[in-house]
């Protein structure tokens, strides 16, 4: 494969930028949460690419831990969103403004 490291890092950066775009643009908490996962996805792609082109295994091990933590984080975050919906009957962030009053 003649595709270099820079192409992978550029792709990872663009994935991170798209995720940040979603976090700012959307009002639905679940879609914001999926955009956060997209940002994590870009980061782990960069880590795997660095690990492969550096010739060490450490980046891959980092990605292993990141995936584990992300799975735990998704379970806890979705439980919080469900609890929020049970309390307020809405998951739109522009309707969850009770702290600003």
């Amino acid at each position: 494969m003649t595709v270099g490291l820079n192409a992978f890092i550029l792709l990872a950066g663009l994935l991170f930028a798209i995720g940040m775009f979603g976090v700012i643009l959307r009002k639905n908490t679940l879609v914001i949460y999926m955009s956060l996962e997209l940002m994590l996805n870009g980061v782990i792609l960069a880590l795997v690419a660095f690990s492969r082109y550096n010739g060490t295994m450490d980046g891959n091990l980092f990605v292993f831990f990141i995936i584990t933590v992300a799975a735990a984080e998704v379970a806890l975050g979705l439980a919080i969103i469900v609890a929020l919906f049970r309390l307020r009957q809405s998951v739109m962030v522009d309707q969850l403004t009770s702290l600003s009053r």
Partner: protein
Amino acid sequence: MTDILFYIFAAITLISALLMVVSPNAVNGAICMIICFVTTAALFVLLEAYFLAVIQVLVYAGAVMVLFLFIIMLLDVNKDTSDLLKDKMTLGASITGFTLLVILIGSVFAGGQHLPETALLPVIENPTGEGAGIPFTTSAKSFGYSLFTKYMLPFQVTGFLLLAAMIGVIVVSKKHSENS
């Protein structure tokens, strides 16, 4: 041949990620997200990280996205889907921020003469575990070797974190009774 595969998978990843962000229906967005995760796993295969590709499909595209789809369909929040284009201020601000971030990332790669382009290193098929660093291998054996030698403490901490997250989910999602 693998160069063409890289460009195809990179294009699918970026397009499905953008579709996820702008899709007004959250269920369609979740499906696009699954496509994005699977093509990222294909990119891992191109980088010869086969074990991580399998983990990516199993954990991310499988467990995490099934959980997301379950919660999206459980809460059924697709009633007001016109949240995207109504707020002109948010739309303008987010597009401006996105463009600035893309320009920032692109300006690093635009010239190309500052960044060193490293070649792919040869992959050692069967590591012995000798020496200081852990060399890049394609076998899942080196994951187990690293987890139980160099990364023993993070491994234990991650296991404890999973336990804490499990207990936390139970506490958060439990219905509180009136007198407690």
